[in-house]
């Protein structure tokens, strides 16, 4: 793996059909850092991750991958550096698990697309890391939602990119697999990977992520260690839920009074 270049976004604004999905978001991801992206439904998490991965160009603003503006790089060059994991994991066709993971090698293949032993080794390694090696010959349609999600995570790992941009990688996983995933992400960041993952489970952010970004209605409203973000005013405004420091996970959830929800 090549070392991760810093990923920097300046004043990103993204509009689709007159709707502002992202509003003046600036952030930087240092090499080897691991961050959680939080926000209520429709806050712009997916949009931000897609822009950072260079999937779509922002309406305004600029993204830098190291020295380079991402909109000037070709798709395949970006894919060697940034592995993006989309939310959607279903398919109308029914490929085999290992064939899906093999696609992660695409940016490293030559013009004729011949596979080397290194490619196959990396695929086996990725399958091993997500615990799906025994299921490699199965077809996608025979897997559960959580298993499918891990197949596509393995695809992203096989890509051997130093930056991982993951859109809700934990959503379909049970608690055991969630913790496995978080351990895997922590290990990857110790190996020098830069990781940004959008999450819905605030506890995972608190337990495993040293840095938390909070999006609300397209704006980046908070950025810091989870202990402060989770208890902050912006999070309460974003979700309409107040969290309190307490026992157990360290924080307990308190349902909002109805008035707070109606204001949103």
């Amino acid at each position: 793996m090549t070392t991760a270049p810093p990923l920097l976004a300046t004043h990103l604004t993204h509009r689709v059909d007159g709707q502002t999905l992202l509003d003046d978001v600036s952030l930087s991801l240092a090499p080897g850092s691991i961050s959680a992206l939080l926000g209520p439904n429709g806050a712009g998490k997916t949009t931000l991750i897609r822009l950072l991965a260079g999937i779509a160009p922002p309406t305004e603003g600029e993204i830098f991958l190291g020295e380079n503006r991402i909109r000037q790089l070709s798709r395949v060059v970006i894919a060697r550096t940034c592995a993006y994991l989309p939310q959607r994991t279903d398919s109308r066709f029914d490929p085999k698990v290992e064939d899906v993971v093999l696609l992660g090698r695409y940016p490293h293949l030559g013009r004729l697309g011949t596979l080397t032993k290194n490619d196959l080794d990396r695929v086996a390694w990725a399958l091993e890391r997500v615990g799906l090696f025994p299921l490699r010959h199965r077809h996608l349609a025979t897997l559960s939602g959580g298993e499918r999600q891990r197949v596509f995570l393995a695809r992203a790992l096989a890509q051997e990119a130093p930056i991982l941009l993951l859109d809700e990688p934990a959503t379909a996983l049970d608690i055991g697999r969630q913790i496995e995933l978080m351990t895997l992400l922590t290990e990857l960041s110790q190996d020098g990977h830069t990781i940004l993952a959008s999450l819905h489970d605030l506890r995972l952010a608190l337990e495993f992520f040293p840095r938390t970004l909070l999006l609300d209605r397209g704006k980046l409203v908070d950025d810091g260690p989870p202990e402060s973000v989770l208890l902050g005013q912006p999070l309460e405004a974003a979700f309409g839920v107040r969290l309190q420091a307490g026992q157990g996970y360290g924080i307990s959830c308190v349902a909002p009074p109805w008035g707070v929800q109606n204001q949103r």
Partner: protein
Amino acid sequence: MRLSRSARVALLLTAGYAGLLLLSVVWGTASIPPAHAFKVLITEMGWGENHSVPELQRFLILQVRLPQGLLLGLVGAALACSGAALQATFENPLADPGILGVSGGASLGAVLAIHSGLADSLFLALPLCACLGGFLASLLVYALTYLGGRPSGPTLLLTGVAVGSMSVAGVSLVMVVTEVHRVQELLFWLVGGVRNQTWDHLALAGPPIAFGVGGLLLLHRRLDALQLGEEQALAIGIPVVWTRLWILVLTALATGAATAVSGGIGFVGLMVPQILRRLVGSRSQPLLVCCITGGAAFLLACELISRSLTERFSLHLGILTSLLGGPTFLLVLRKTRERRS
């Protein structure tokens, strides 16, 4: 060495096509003893002299049945591969050059070339117009689907159906304004078949089909990625818009050339990949390889069935494939809905 499943299927299909080709040479309205057919073929390949076969039979074998059998193989391969590629590209198991309007556009291009007299005055004008018509039709479908924002499978399919209907209406319009004695010639573009085709047609359709199918084979990994969805394809570094455009050019080339020599033969591109996906899986490389021989064998088998029925019903090849294809379409539609629910 043990062969992979897809290699075995491909070999079996090749053998099937070869067998059907021999059958198609000896069997028809004038039946030729198999021994005569073998003698002629062996003589033709330069192994020995033989003059015991009547000249008429020699002509039938070498100038009529053999080129037609080979041409059907070529057309079947082109349509099946185009269908498989379009299904992957648009992430829709119901895609087919006929359904997406590519064949219709190609027919319209060909009919216009004949009607305007271009085909008589310019060498290669007919196949070029057919390819161009096919490409314009698929480009129109692509543009119409994508201009409306996020595309969806059903939108694409329905846009294709609409563009296809417009093309067929165009063909009908040209037929209406054409003098009665030439209508028969144009009718061929609607129903399809290879009854009057010769080696010239084979030479005409061969290069563009080889180029189109070969190009699709080179793009097999991109097809694999596209069939998992646009986001996944973008995520691994595939320039989706350009790739789709390339695939449209290649399928239009193959389908256009096929339509230029065989008229509008529908549903082959739907049926063959559907059956083969079940046998060899959905990876594009083995699927496309099997589609080459599978499409060839399938279309030749259809021709033989149509030949055996023609004496009584006059069932054209294109009509037969549509008769088989309609129910297949409905079956696939049903299965797709089951999987989604």
